[in-house]
């Protein structure tokens, strides 16, 4: 079908997401990803380590692994929705980074994202789609941080592209 093939306008798509996000805000809380990912990390670690995990204070005091944490299901939903979108538009195919430099950048980038989320208690989604629209002081602090970080990251990215 044609509607599944064309690229949607990002402004309209994001406006629909915003309205749904306001509904979610009324029901459980605004869109967020970092918390769900942390809980998944905890659940995966618990799978491998069993009760040993509870001996690490963080997983006992801050995030007790709990499969009933709603934020996990936002992430799983996004994965599911993206697979549906990609399959319907015939855009699903395995894409593997070709250069070693890409693998290195993705590895470092992934680690920095994980560490950053845990250090800040928030990810980019809560920054732009939760905290800042709620006028939370943390939102403004996070926006300053993420713009500065994106600028430094862009300069590194440019250097790598040019070399």
């Amino acid at each position, binding site marked *: 079908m044609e509607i*599944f093939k064309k*690229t949607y306008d*990002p*402004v309209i*798509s*994001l406006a629909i*997401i*915003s309205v*749904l*996000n*306001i509904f979610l805000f*009324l029901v*459980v*809380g*605004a*869109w967020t990803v970092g918390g769900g990912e942390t809980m998944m990390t905890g659940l995966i670690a618990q799978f491998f380590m069993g009760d040993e995990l509870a001996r690490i204070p*963080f*997983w006992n005091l*801050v995030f007790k692994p709990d499969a*009933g944490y709603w934020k*996990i299901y*936002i992430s799983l939903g*996004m994965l599911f*929705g*993206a697979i549906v*979108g*990609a399959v319907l538009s015939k855009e*699903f*195919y395995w894409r593997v*980074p070709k250069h070693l430099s890409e*693998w290195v950048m993705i590895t470092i980038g992934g680690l*920095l*994202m*994980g*560490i950053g*989320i*845990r*250090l*800040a208690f*928030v990810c*980019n989604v809560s920054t*732009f*789609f939760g*905290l800042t*629209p*709620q*006028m*939370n*002081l*943390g939102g403004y*602090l*996070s*926006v300053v*941080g*993420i*713009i500065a*970080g*994106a600028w430094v990251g*862009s300069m590194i990215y*440019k250097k790598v592209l040019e070399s």
Partner: protein
Amino acid sequence: MSIVGQCIAAFVFGSIVGFLVQRSRFCNTSALRDAILFKSYRNTKALLVTMMILTVGFTTFMTFGDGHPLHFDVGINQVIGLFLFGIGMVLAGACTVSTWVKAGEGNVGAIWALLFTFIGMFLFSLVWSYSYWPPASDTMNGEVNLAGLQFGFANAATLQEQTGIPAIFFGLIQTAVLYAIYRVIIRKEQRAEQQRSVKQSTAASTSL
């Protein structure tokens, strides 16, 4: 709402988001990176429009005490954390949303980025278990905590409490600021468009 209900609502919301983000190719990373590196604002404009809608929506409901705003003390750790996150997302070429969406498109690099996000979180959980900083939510009381580099808690609802002015009023001011940024970007784009057409017309006249 029951736990199962919460999880179902979250999954339905996530699915629609995943579909729309995949079909519109929106990416939070490129909203910042493309604006910085390439002066291209397709995603930046979408991000600003979303923030305007959400600011009006959230602050309207917060005026009446509805909704579930995020509630924890904030401090220097937000600036440092998101700074590291900002570098990371540009290097990985994906943020928390697009890693999931690109993973759904079959992007092995995005799956790799997700794996290392999890590893990064686990590594930091070990560091936290040693440093106990940033403070855990149990110890948060909304007050300034200089030893923990924390500023306490403030949002549109606390502003309303302290000033007696409805939260929506502050929300509208923020929306106006966001709109002003949006207008600056639109003007920049128009100017770039004019320059391009001038160049094209001079190129056409010299070729005649």
